[in-house]
């Protein structure tokens, strides 16, 4: 019985909170974000997102791991348009992880919500369960018109039809940084050494990425910003992306 109880405890409090090295997180400052969508292209370039074509857009089958949502507020002439970049929140209590029958999506030791493409059998349950709707399904096997395939990132798989895919926080870059750290004989990756493609490209520096286990990392400090909030926090999915809400002008 004691053993069972230990197992249960272990299950209720998974290790990635303190046991392992990293707990990757991100903040997005909506006061800086202009909705220019540079991040969207950066993501597409880095992660081999397919060029799906007009027809697929019409069918709403586009694949954009990171999309910018827009919301109008008010009516003309007192009208505002607000942008919010929406990407996988890497929830610590991810609703998408429980229902996958083959465990193709799970939390890894870095606190990332990961998707193993070649384990996926395409039940699409994760996409149904995801409240942020950031999981994208490969309805077809997409082709790149020659020679566009030459720009494909060799560090990222090209997904085939029937597979779910989503933001990985550019895990290939994390891997690269860890590799460099090991080469230098360091145990840990330095703050700022890993930047996902979207964060790297952001023209207003609205996004900050880093390790939440490190109290001195930039992202940990941004996490404490009083403007911070999490989208759909009431669902208790514990998303790891903190948005900093748009500030009021003090003029």
């Amino acid at each position, binding site marked *: 019985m004691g053993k069972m109880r230990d197992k249960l405890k272990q299950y209720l409090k998974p290790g990635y909170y303190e046991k392992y090295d990293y707990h990757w997180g991100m903040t997005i400052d909506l006061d800086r974000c202009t909705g220019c969508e540079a991040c969207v292209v950066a993501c597409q370039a880095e992660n081999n997102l397919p060029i799906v074509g007009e027809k697929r857009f019409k069918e709403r089958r586009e694949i954009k791991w990171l999309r910018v949502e827009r919301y109008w507020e008010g009516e003309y002439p007192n009208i505002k348009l607000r942008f919010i970049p929406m990407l996988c929140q890497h929830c610590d209590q991810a609703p998408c992880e429980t229902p996958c029958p083959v465990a193709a999506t*799970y939390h*890894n*030791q870095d606190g*990332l919500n*990961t998707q*193993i*493409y*070649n*384990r996926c059998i395409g039940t699409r349950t994760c996409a149904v369960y995801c409240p942020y709707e950031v999981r994208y399904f490969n309805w077809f096997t997409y082709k790149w018109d020659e020679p566009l395939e030459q720009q494909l990132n060799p*560090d*990222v*798989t*090209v997904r085939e039809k029937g597979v779910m895919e989503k933001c*990985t926080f550019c*895990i*290939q870059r994390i*891997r690269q940084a860890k*590799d460099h750290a*090991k*080469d230098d004989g360091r145990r840990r990756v330095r703050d700022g050494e890993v930047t996902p493609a979207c964060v790297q490209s952001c023209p207003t520096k609205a996004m900050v990425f880093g390790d939440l286990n490190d109290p001195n990392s930039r992202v940990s400090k941004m996490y404490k910003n009083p403007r911070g909030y999490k989208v759909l926090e009431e669902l208790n999915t514990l998303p790891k992306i903190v948005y900093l809400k748009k500030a009021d002008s003090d003029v």
Partner: protein
Amino acid sequence: MSISVRDALGTFKKPAVISIIGLIGFIIGYVIDVTVFSDASPVQPINFSHRMHVSKNSIPCLHCHVYADKTPSAGVPGVSKCMGCHKVIATEHPEIQKLATYWEKREPIPWIKVHDVPDFVYFTHKRHVLAGLACQECHGPVENMDRVTRVSSLKMPWCVDCHTKKQVENGRDCWTCHK
């Protein structure tokens, strides 16, 4: 007429035997294919002998596969590297003359890949070499091979087995090897 089940089953004896023989044939056929017609040891464009180079002439692996401890890929030596020695050594040998032809035409040698992992696998030689793994642990006794033969399955269970045995840090996390 009898209502004996055994009698009734007797009617279907022959079809059953035929199916079983067919099944056995299938298995034999498959086994023959993977053993006799195995792709583990393809015939290369040049009859290069690792035994000759490594065992007889004591050239270390990293001398030719220069990238193995630096990059994910071990790297095949460029034709220039081969010619570095073979401008003077064994130039009369027919295989070396093949090499010389490639060099004169400035063409790469179309070596056939023996060890290949699928595109969705991230494998880095660097980390394995730097972790102190001998080349032979995965590639087998290449130094004794005239023609390189794959000795490991390079399938996932084989990888996971070793990672488990050696207690590799995060060695069983999917994203350690998949991309």
